[in-house]
């Protein structure tokens, strides 16, 4: 139906929804992020208890040791609701796709030195399984977390990790070397160098505290692994063999930089809420960091040889600095 509407200006009766006006303390326009996020998860009058966890309500703040008086304080500084999230990933995917195409067109993978390729694939390909573990553990947060602010961000992180696992898989396709995927999987399952890491992420799959999973996966593991392997190891490959892997792992670097802003902000707000939260977060970060460093040491040794310890020390320092900035002294 079409109708000629003269452009007119009419005064709205209200600027936003009641729950947002109360939250902002005034009736003023709300952002689309707020409309898509705030106060939307049910908090009361549930009909039934879960048959799978009758000790809890459907949504229950007691599923973590972290305590917040307002769970929507855990806002996403990127202001990601579905639209901006998928637009950002679409743009990143376009760039990544262009890079993969270019590597293919110019035959850059085939021309890459065999020694460099073997080393790179040995270190990078098993990371698809690490990302897969993060996918499932972030799905847990998305499922059982409290409040849409955190669950939607975890849902996006979970899908992002699936995307990362798929981009890593494409490395093998780009190098026309599917056998390397099978070897990487065997290494992940049986190779001594990967067992500490696999053991850790499998332990996380039975962790019931969803906030612990956020800290372990999105802050500690990614906070050490990405700077170590997607940055420092990538730099090493660039210097020794040329920048092909730099092109083929661009998505991961861009993603990690952006996602760190989100998780840092979440930790900062949670730590600022109470001394108890701060202490709990410090315990988790210390424990998880210790396990992750132990797990990454054999990988770092393959990647950096005798520089492994120095590289690890750098990324540990970087993680500690981020924790300190979030108000969590370790």
């Amino acid at each position: 139906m079409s109708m000629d509407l003269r452009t007119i200006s009419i005064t709205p009766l209200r600027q936003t929804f009641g729950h947002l006006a109360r939250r902002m303390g005034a009736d003023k326009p709300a952002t689309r992020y707020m409309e898509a996020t705030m106060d939307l998860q049910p908090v009361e009058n549930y009909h039934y208890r879960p048959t799978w966890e009758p000790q809890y309500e459907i949504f229950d703040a007691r599923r973590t040791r972290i305590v917040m008086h307002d769970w929507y304080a855990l806002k996403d500084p990127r202001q990601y609701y579905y639209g901006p999230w998928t637009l950002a990933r679409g743009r990143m995917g376009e760039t990544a796709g262009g890079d993969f195409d270019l590597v293919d067109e110019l035959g850059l993978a085939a021309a890459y030195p065999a020694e460099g390729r073997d080393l790179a694939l040995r270190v990078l390909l098993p990371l698809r399984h690490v990302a897969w573990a993060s996918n499932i553990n972030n799905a847990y947060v998305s499922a059982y977390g409290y409040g849409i602010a955190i669950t939607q961000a975890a849902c996006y992180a979970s899908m992002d990790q699936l995307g990362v696992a798929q981009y890593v898989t494409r490395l093998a396709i780009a190098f026309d070397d599917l056998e390397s995927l099978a070897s990487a999987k065997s290494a992940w399952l049986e190779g001594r160098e990967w067992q500490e890491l696999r053991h850790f992420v499998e332990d996380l799959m039975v962790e019931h505290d969803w906030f612990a999973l956020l800290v372990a996966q999105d802050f500690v593991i990614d906070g050490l692994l990405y700077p170590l392997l997607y940055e420092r190891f990538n730099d090493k490959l660039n210097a020794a063999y040329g920048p092909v892997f730099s092109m083929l792992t661009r998505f991961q670097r861009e993603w990690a930089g952006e996602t760190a802003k989100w998780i840092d902000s979440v930790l900062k707000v949670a730590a600022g809420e109470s001394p108890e939260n701060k202490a709990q977060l410090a315990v988790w970060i210390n424990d998880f960091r210790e396990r992750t460093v132990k797990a990454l040491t054999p990988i770092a040794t393959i990647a950096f040889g005798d520089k492994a310890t120095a590289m690890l020390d750098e990324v540990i320092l970087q993680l500690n600095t981020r924790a300190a900035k979030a108000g969590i002294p370790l």
Partner: protein
Amino acid sequence: MDMKTSKKLGLKERYTMMTRDLAWDTTYQPMDKVFPQVGYEGIKIHDWDKWEDPFRLTMDAYWKYQAEKERKLYAILDAFNQNNGHLSVTDGRYINVLKLFLGSTPPLELMAARGFSMVGRQMVGAGPRVACQMQAVDEYRHFQTQIHSISNYNKFYNGMDEFAHQQSRMWYLSDGKSFFDDAITAGPFEFMVAIGFAFEYVLTNILFVPFISGAAYNGDMAAMTVGFSAQSDEARHMTLGLECIKFMLEQDPDNLAIVQRWIDKWTWRGTRKLASVGMMMDYMLPKRIMSFKEAWEIYFEQNGAALFTDLARYGVTIPKCFAQTVEEKEHVTHQSWLGFYMKPESTPFHTWIPGPDELDWLSEKYPNTFDKYYRPMYEYLDAQEKAGNRFNNKTQPMNCQVCVNTIKYNEPGDPMEMCFRETVYQGEKFHFCSGHCQEIFEDEPEKYIQTYISSHQALQGNCAPEGVDTHAPDFNPGSHIADYWRLDPRATGDFNGSEDQKNFAAWRDLATKN
């Protein structure tokens, strides 16, 4: 290395490498501890690898398609809002459809998002897990785009501003809440039958037609665009629901009895949930698309029957409630609208008596029932209203313990008799709207004794603001309920004479006249 195979990778092979091949069986922790929920419902799965991916979308492709859709959608929403698109709808009454929609639908899409995240965590197979996760994130999209499309209407019309607060409190939203609460508190396989199959596959068109085509017919470009933009997502969701049913049935013959019970239960629960949607088609859209009866015949009786014929090879039979729904299609929408009309102080949307043309349309569409049973009621209520004696039911309704609908439907075979069923469980009497709901209760009484019935809660004094003495001798539960709901009195009662009606007319005049 001469592995020149990648260029020849088929779509299926490539997708397997991008999903299932990422997964492994855990050994440091036992698989049944990593996936603790897949066993207790009794569904037997022997080989998760037999799962057929219903669609094969890697994340890069997903982001590309979805980003394109989002870009277009928000461009249209912005333009619609900027140009006061709300004034181009057929009639101010139409906006009441959006009020009902906003209260009932985005909150349930949100439950679907969380529910699919749960199943996307709990399924053992990587194939179903990824498919469920993708549906979870789609459902975030759906509730958010729905809220965004209605946000601008909220600025100009009453009754939409407290939807988030009302979702868990408002009596008539309790049926939808109970539906999703029931599904999400069930195990992962029952959730898939409830939402993935019964809701998304069997009944989804009945939801789509009134809202989306209804929006299109009535000039609401915003809601229409949201709906059309969601359609390709919905197509994926439908194939997931169907694949899940087939997978369960193919895995073990013992699964059939369980799955059949769930199909019977959830088709009925979905049917009850859709009564208010049907009412929207028959009464609330100023420009009608088709009657609820016609929609039911096409989308449920014909398409549904074809689906169940297809599933017959697994031993699945047509849902038990099928015949009753066919009989009820001639009644439920009229009973629902009458029910809402009779409670003018209890909803954040307006009601009205259909105009003469509309009554004729209903007579034509419902030749077997409308003139015989319902027209006389409308004519009576209309006469009463005009005589200054507008009907106003101030009592608390009696609700079904399972579907939570107000008990208002007729006895099968007897339109003049109200249908009541009751069961005594542990010394307490429970009431039902139908034999089907009674049977659902009796299958799982420990679950359904928990149902939150808002009229009971109000009578128990649980819906009064803090500081009110609910034990005072003169305590009247009804006097506080509107505050508990945050119900704006301007949003209640008759459309005729409402602020919405006046504003819409005045603004449209400004926009279209000199």
